[in-house]
């Protein structure tokens, strides 16, 4: 871009950056719905990253995602230049300017390598490990570059397009990834004997398949290393072999505590790429059921966590509204957990006739049960002793580690996509975003309780003005026509056949679309090549940076506090491992 032209909106710092780096950074035009993109090369990546973080006009303080891609099979104009094949897309966010940015680096086919950004944003650590594991991009200077989602016996990089997905690799006991601290046996001379404790992956308190190896000095954790990947289901690789609409059942299983929010996030990403807007009633129902899912997610998080620290009664109270919400979801979609209710361009079906009074009844019951939990917990001294001052994450740490969602807000950053970049119906309703500055477990607990109450408020307001009309778009190139038309009209039947056999034809392009999931920013990076199948689909799971930071949070604390912290960070293995 020449210096005379005005920089694109949101990239006002670009002329300074170009001057500093001598034209090695360029802005790239993309879809209007997409985030702004800067392209740089591997040699100047580190300098660019530092500028983007430190310059007050840029101030990208949050590292959100690293979406790697193998472009070798892209056709036509999208095809990479000769010799180039891979791509690293860093998604950044500025909490001060409320702006996203994609930093793109094109990489050669042979030995793709970029300098690590872990020293600029510590959150990059696990994202880079994942990109190395699945795409084979080498990060020079990475402190701990080893496989993350696959096991040590795995050969090759699974998300490369030439990887044969039918291969099977046996994981023997020697191939189990040994953590460094488990292997290290020599003790410092001034220390008492320490013990290595293997926590998980089948420990009940991990609520899933998480593994943490701790080195203990008595009850105190001197060092810890967390490991994930036990629930890896190849979501991203599977998506490439399924049509856009067939991915919905897979998204149900990402964060299985709030499946509707995943449906919403994925549908929004593809709809933005298509330029399709669902009818207002569909968006309203998505918001309502999404907020109910958020309540459900927080209830599960709190209930399970309180069981871990010994308060079983809350479990029964908190799970009761969850059952009711599941019944509502079942009446709308046909399944209690694996809802698959979203469709590109709307919803599968309209809600049942008694939807509004039913919702109101659930809201009433949920408020009672939340009040039960609050009576038992919020001002209970035993809980205070367990929660207050444990698992403390400061504001600076939370930003550096890439936290989003309730855990970031509990540390004092009022970042909520529903407020900052309203989508669906969030711009039309009145609600509070609770923020606390303590950053400890108690703050995370209080923020979650308050968020549930605000979610119920949002639902009530939308129920008051729930619009009528259809819930499915009438653009039959993206959504199946109504059955009556399919049975009787030739044209509709042709649309129907084309959609089922070829999938939704999404125009070539690229998008990063984010929604506020129950645990934080749920982002979908999609690259489309114009066919009915996603060329590359990368999920930004909100839990991922939380669990990556877990080993640092619990260091110096007690084992029992580590359990309380793990519960309140709310790590969901389904979206962590994908």
């Amino acid at each position, binding site marked *: 871009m020449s210096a005379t032209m005005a920089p694109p909106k949101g990239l006002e710092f670009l002329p300074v950056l170009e001057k500093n780096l001598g034209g090695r950074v360029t802005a790239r035009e993309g879809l209007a719905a997409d985030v702004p993109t800067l392209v740089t090369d591997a040699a100047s990546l580190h300098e660019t990253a530092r500028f983007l973080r430190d310059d007050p006009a840029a101030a990208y303080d949050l590292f959100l995602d690293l979406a790697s891609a193998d472009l070798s099979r892209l056709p036509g104009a999208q095809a990479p230049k000769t010799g180039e094949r891979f791509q690293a897309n860093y998604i950044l966010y500025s909490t001060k300017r409320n702006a996203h940015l994609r930093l793109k680096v094109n990489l050669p086919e042979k030995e793709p390598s970029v300098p690590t950004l872990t020293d600029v944003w510590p959150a990059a650590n696990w994202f880079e490990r994942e990109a190395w594991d699945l795409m084979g991009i080498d990060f020079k200077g990475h402190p701990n570059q080893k496989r993350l989602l696959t096991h040590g016996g795995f050969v090759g990089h699974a998300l490369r397009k030439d990887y044969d997905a039918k291969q099977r690799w046996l994981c023997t006991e020697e191939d189990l990834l040994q953590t460094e601290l488990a292997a290290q046996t020599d003790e410092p001379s001034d220390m008492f004997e320490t013990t290595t404790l293997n926590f998980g992956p089948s420990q009940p308190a991990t609520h899933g398949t998480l593994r943490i190896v701790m080195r203990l000095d008595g009850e105190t954790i001197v060092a810890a290393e967390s490991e994930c990947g036990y629930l890896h289901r190849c979501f991203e690789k599977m998506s490439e072999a*399924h049509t856009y609409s*067939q*991915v919905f*059942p897979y998204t149900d299983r990402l964060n299985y505590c709030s499946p509707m929010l995943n449906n919403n996030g994925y549908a929004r990403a593809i709809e933005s790429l298509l330029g399709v807007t669902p009818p207002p009633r569909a968006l309203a129902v998505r918001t309502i059921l999404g907020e109910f899912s958020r309540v459900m997610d927080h209830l599960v998080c709190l209930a399970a966590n309180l069981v871990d620290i010994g308060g079983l*009664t809350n479990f029964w109270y908190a799970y*009761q509204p969850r*059952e009711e919400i599941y*019944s509502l979801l*079942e*009446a709308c979609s*046909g*399944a209690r957990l*694996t809802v*698959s209710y979203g469709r590109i361009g709307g919803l599968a*079906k*309209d809600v*049942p*006739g008694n939807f509004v*009074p039913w919702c109101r*009844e659930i809201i009433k019951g949920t408020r009672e049960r939340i009040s*039960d939990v609050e*009576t*038992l917990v919020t*001002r*209970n*001294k*035993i809980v*205070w002793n367990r929660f*207050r001052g444990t698992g403390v994450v400061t504001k600076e740490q939370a930003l550096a580690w890439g936290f989003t969602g309730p855990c970031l807000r509990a540390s004092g950053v*009022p970042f*909520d996509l*529903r*407020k900052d970049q309203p989508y669906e119906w*969030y*711009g*039309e*309703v*009145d*609600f*509070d*975003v609770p*923020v*606390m500055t303590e950053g400890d477990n*108690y703050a995370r607990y*209080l923020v979650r309780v*308050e968020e549930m109450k605000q979610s119920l408020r949002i639902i009530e307001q939308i129920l008051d003005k729930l619009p*009528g009309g*259809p819930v499915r778009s009438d653009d039959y190139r993206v959504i*199946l*026509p*109504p*059955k*009556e*038309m*399919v*049975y009787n009209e030739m044209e509709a*039947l042709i649309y*129907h*056949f084309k959609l*089922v056999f070829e999938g939704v034809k999404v125009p070539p392009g690229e998008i990063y679309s984010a929604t506020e999931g129950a645990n934080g920013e749920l982002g979908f990076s999609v690259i489309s090549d114009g066919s009915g199948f996603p060329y590359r689909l990368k999920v930004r799971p909100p839990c991922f940076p939380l669990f990556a930071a877990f080993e640092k949070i619990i260091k110096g604390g007690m084992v029992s506090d580590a359990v309380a912290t793990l519960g309140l960070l709310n790590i969901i293995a389904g979206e962590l491992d994908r």
Partner: protein
Amino acid sequence: MAARVVTLKVPETTWAESIYLVEIVKGLARTLGHFLKNLTNMKGLPTIQYPEMLRKYSGRFRGRHILKKREDDTLKCVACYMCETACPAECIHIEAGEHPVLAYEKYPTVFEIDLLRCVYCGYCVDACPKDAIWMTRDYELSFFDRKSAVLGIPELTEKPSDTSQGGPGYGYRPYEGESPMKKAGQFEPSGLPLLPALLERGVAINRMPPPPPKPPAPSASPAAKG
């Protein structure tokens, strides 16, 4: 109409809270309230005594599939492979044959659904252009071996027991819960009346076997059992 940031404060500890006892009594009062409420209203308990009782599901429930039949008792399916293509789990296998009735053209000689692969997403129902595949509310699907989990045409064909009294009933199917459209392409919000009583959804179906008939009753009609 906007979102506001609200900073929450950690509540101050009062003297009463610091001595444990008051808060514990408050908590006990709340649990005791629940206990008494449940004791006096056993029928209102949210717990369902599965397997003696069964949860009541909506007419959209996605359970075991059935193949619908035409009035002349032949399968509606024309083996067009739409459901097989739409299935994200690749659990449907169809082989087509030529139908002796000329108007029907094709029919499935093999129609298998592997229920161990199936994710019950209902995409096959959405994809069917002939209204030939529906789902039921039957979700108690357990098998002793993998082979018996692969249902063929005889098992999938709709049986009277699917909808009879005590049967699972229809689940996910086109237009369930929506009023039929007056004109193709014109949508209406569902105008269904409220469920007979909102309370009913929580009421479970009692499926304890009826008490055995008294011994001297040889004349009982065997057809009474549905």
